[in-house]
């Protein structure tokens, strides 16, 4: 499908109607994971490891099972072991051997919070008492939290049989380094030899949590004939079904997953946690089992994103042309391999047109929760390092930082170092829009500084299904299977379908179908929702239109070529000899049943042709030199989204993503004690931004349409979180003349640096 329509042709796309899920959400009607209940349901709770690393010697559940009100207990023994088997499931390829162990520990616990048993009881308090009665004998082992320490040859090993992949010949000693990847292009050594200025720096970032406000919650109900129903808060109900079927050795057809409203995900709800446990407990107890995580469980046991150690070396000529770029990215994967180091390595320098590049990535296991995706997984970590060095290089060359980026910017036809040549992209357009923005020239006060940084994300397509059913009154029931994870894609899809059919948005009612209602859909991730979902909905609408034309041709007894679809009506085609009275969608709907049956359009696609997204951010900060406190004074996000189907919801993505990046830059971090136990598993000490920390976030939507999408959509959800880390660090550097290489920029760190720069202890 290619982009044919111009903005001026559009009636619905580009407008700002109200979201179909809105009224339910402002009245408290909307049902989230924890809001679903069944009669007779039990409450399930998980016993978690108090140790960062330990061998499980024995688990005794007899006392818990004997407690009145306890209906089922499950441990590792209730789940089949899984061999090494890789599958695409969400952010990255997963290995079922690891997935089943992360769901329920087998030989060892690998992090504080690792599940070791689960119970189902008639009340929450009884379930809690039951957990206290389960005896687990541990042999506590030395642990490792920090990625650099985990890479040392003498570090405690999480996986005795893990040999670093991607090195030939295969190493002879096991290692916490699960994988080494390398991307290179050209001759880096020659590039650095030609460089007149070289900047080389090392950066560290902390793991941060997606911080969705709704803890994971699910409800499972199984039957004696082996069927299971699951209600859960997820970014991908089809992928959850596939994983539950695998881990529980069930046929896919026996599991029906109904997605609830999701209270935020950002990548953190791509992966199963309690779902298979709830089904297993329900199978054992013959009762529905509801499992809701506490906030503490969310922090201790669900995926943060990686912390990273990144080394960057950049060379340039005095006139501002980059001659060579090199980086090493070392990412925490947590307890099991599979961090986002690969995509991070692939987009580290991809905003630039470079002849000589070398990027090495290491995926490193350590005693933390297995990382999960978080909005442009890995890219913010890489961009923090690279965009900081780009900024420092521009300063050394005395070139305006946007100008320096423009001199080296990737454009259409630029050969990336990870794969394809770029098609139509809008990076330069975002840089120019930022340079032209009044914010970029506004005056600054003392201790204030301005920083810029840019971000790139690939965006993806993937498997997507949709149905467009023409109702008997001419209204439309739209069912799609790519979840609306709250960005407003339900509205966007209804808008595209209304545009195609030439009817009002209000006449299209979109709903998300469960796993029994539609063909397979990939998770909502990679900024694919409106892109791929839209492609499927448009294809389904176009199929419906074809069927409408054929039906009208039959009713009016004219050849189908004589029937055109326009403004919600079947009309005589322009210049056709066959004239007939036009039929509106309502008229067709009314007679459809009596003229061959109801009319629908369907699409089951694997969307290709995703368009890369680029963004440029400008931020002003003020630093309190006496306390190290950083205040964000002004923030502007400029991003190419291809086309904004619903501009207000696109702005919401840009603002929300930027603020998540601000939290990452300033205060968010995990604090582990020497015992490897997480010390801040709550919103009091894991500090996400609050309303009073922030200014308004200005947005500039740039539209360089993606030629492969019928409306030019690229996707927009992930790019906005990439630039803030470096943009803020660059602004602080301008404000106080000190560059920071470690996040978060928390007041103690900033104050110490200020004191050291002044030549004294803080």
């Amino acid at each position, binding site marked *: 499908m290619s982009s044919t329509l111009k903005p001026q042709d559009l009636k619905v796309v580009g407008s700002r109607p109200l979201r179909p899920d809105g009224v339910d959400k402002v009245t408290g009607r909307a049902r989230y994971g924890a809001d679903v209940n069944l009669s007779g349901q039990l409450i399930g709770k998980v016993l978690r490891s108090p140790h960062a690393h330990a061998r499980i010697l024995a688990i005794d559940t007899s006392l818990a099972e004997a407690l009145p009100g306890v209906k089922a207990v499950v441990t590792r023994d209730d789940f089949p072991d899984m061999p090494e088997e890789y599958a695409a499931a969400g952010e990255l390829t997963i290995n079922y051997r690891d997935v089943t162990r992360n769901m329920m520990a087998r030989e060892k616990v690998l992090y504080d919070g690792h599940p070791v048993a689960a119970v189902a009881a008639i009340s929450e308090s009884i379930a809690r008492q039951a957990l206290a009665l389960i005896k687990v004998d541990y042999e506590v082992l030395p642990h490792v939290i920090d990625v650099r320490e985990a890479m040392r040859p003498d570090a405690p090993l999480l996986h005795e049989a893990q040999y670093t992949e991607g090195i030939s010949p295969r190493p002879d000693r096991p290692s916490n380094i699960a994988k080494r990847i390398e991307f290179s292009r050209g001759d880096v050594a020659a590039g650095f030899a030609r460089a007149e200025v070289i900047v080389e720096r090392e950066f560290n970032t902390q793991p941060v949590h997606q911080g969705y406000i709704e803890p994971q919650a699910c409800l499972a109900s199984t039957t004696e004939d082996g069927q299971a129903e699951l209600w859960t808060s997820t970014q991908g109900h089809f992928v959850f079904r596939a994983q539950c079927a695998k881990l529980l050795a069930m046929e896919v057809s026996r599991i029906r997953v109904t997605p609830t409203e999701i209270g935020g995900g950002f990548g953190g709800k791509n992966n199963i946690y309690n779902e298979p446990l709830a089904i297993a407990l329900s199978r054992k107890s013959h009762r529905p089992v509801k499992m809701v995580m506490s906030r503490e469980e969310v922090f201790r046991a669900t995926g943060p994103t990686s912390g990273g150690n990144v080394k960057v070396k950049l060379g340039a000529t005095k006139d501002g042309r980059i001659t060579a770029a090199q980086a090493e990215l070392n990412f925490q994967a947590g307890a099991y391999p599979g961090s986002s180091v690969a995509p991070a390595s692939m987009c580290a320098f991809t905003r630039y047109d470079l002849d000589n590049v070398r990027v090495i990535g290491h995926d490193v296991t350590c005693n933390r929760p297995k990382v999960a995706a978080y909005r442009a997984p890995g890219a913010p970590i890489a961009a923090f390092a690279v965009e900081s060095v780009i900024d420092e290089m521009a300063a050394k060359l005395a070139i305006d930082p946007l100008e320096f980026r423009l001199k080296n910017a990737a454009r259409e036809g630029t050969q990336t170092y990870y794969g394809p040549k770029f098609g139509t992209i809008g990076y330069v357009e975002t840089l120019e829009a930022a340079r032209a923005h009044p914010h970029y020239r506004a005056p600054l006060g003392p201790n204030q500084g301005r920083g810029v940084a840019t971000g790139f994300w690939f965006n993806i397509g993937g498997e997507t299904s949709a149905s467009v059913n023409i109702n008997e009154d001419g209204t439309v029931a739209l069912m799609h299977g790519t979840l609306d994870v709250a960005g407003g894609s339900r509205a966007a899809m209804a808008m595209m379908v209304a545009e195609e059919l030439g009817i009002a948005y209000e006449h299209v009612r979109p709903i998300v179908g469960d796993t029994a209602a539609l063909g397979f859909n990939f998770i909502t991730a990679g900024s694919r929702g409106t892109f791929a979902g839209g492609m499927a909905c448009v294809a389904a609408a176009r199929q419906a239109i074809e069927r409408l034309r054929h039906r009208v041709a039959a009713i009016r007894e004219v050849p189908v070529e004589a029937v055109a679809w326009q403004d919600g009506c079947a009309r005589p085609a322009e210049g056709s000899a066959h004239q007939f009275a036009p039929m509106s969608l309502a008229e067709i709907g009314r007679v459809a049943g009596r003229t061959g049956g109801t009319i629908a359009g369907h699409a089951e696609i694997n969307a290709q042709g995703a368009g890369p997204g680029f963004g440029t951010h400008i931020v002003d900060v003020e630093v309190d030199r006496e306390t190290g406190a950083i205040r964000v004074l002004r923030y502007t996000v400029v991003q190419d989204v291809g086309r904004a189907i619903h501009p207000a919801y696109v702005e919401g993505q840009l603002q929300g993503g930027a603020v998540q990046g601000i939290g990452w830059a300033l205060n968010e971090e995990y604090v582990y004690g020497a015992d490897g136990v997480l010390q801040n598993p709550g919103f009091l000490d894991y500090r996400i931004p609050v309303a009073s920390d922030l200014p308004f976030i200005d947005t500039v939507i740039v539209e360089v349409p993606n030629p492969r999408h019928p409306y030019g959509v690229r996707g927009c959800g992930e790019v906005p979180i990439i630039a803030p880390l470096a943009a803020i660090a660059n602004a602080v550097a301008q404000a106080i003349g000190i560059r920071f290489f470690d996040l978060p920029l928390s007041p103690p760190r900033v104050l110490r640096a200020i004191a050291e720069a002044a030549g004294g202890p*803080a």
Partner: protein
Amino acid sequence: MSEMRYAAPKTLAAAVALLAGAQGRARVLAGGTDLLIQMRTGRIKPELLIDIKGIPGMGEIVAERGGYRVGAAVTGMQLIEHADFAKRWPGVVDGVRLIGSIQVKGRATLGGNLCNASPAADSVPALIAAGAVACIAGPDGAREAAVETVVAGPGKTSLAAGEIVTALLLPPRPAHSGDAYLRFTPRSEMDIAVVGAAVNLTLDAQGICTQARVALGAVASRALLVPEAAAALIGTRVDAGALGQLAAAARAASRPIDDKRGSREFRLSTAGVMVCRAAEIALERARRNDG
């Protein structure tokens, strides 16, 4: 595990009797904003909760002895909304304003903030600087104690078995007095104080500081009254020189720890900064306040 009971006595005597009778297995429930969290995390497992909010006077703010009697179960929002109290003791209100969110302040009480005995409690340094006195009732009758003597250490008070804090007494206020409380937190709201500083001072007609009390929070195992810091202000115009002495005295008195909320060195340096900024606000308020 024995089940937890709940009692809402209507008289102080009944409450004291219940508390004394429970041999330490009971907890007093006022606002509950700390207690419920400690129960949820399993840090405490009381067998009996004694809700004191129904006891007459516990939730009232009354003028008394030229100052105020603030019931132990008075909530943060009640105090913030009491226009005349806020005029007299803006620094105490500064402290109360910083206790959690609006939601938390709708429940959190002054008595609770004191008896929870957190070194970082925001209202406590301000109350100490104000010279507030705690009214205490117990099996052996009633007594009064300076607020700075009530907290013994993290989570520990000097209250005897069966004793309950019933009210806080704020003394009369001379003209040209002003107080202020400032704290440092990483975010603008919703954090626990990394450092808290309260200054209460009185000026004479010439603008010389005649009386002062300075208290610090989160820099030791409990909120500290720092006479040396007050001495740095008394007899001065609270000018740059005095503020320098004040900061030095505050840092000298601080015995902070390293924890997840801040390093020792950070607390030491920030204590000096916060106490000076608080003194400047208190000074401005004292100048404007003609009694």
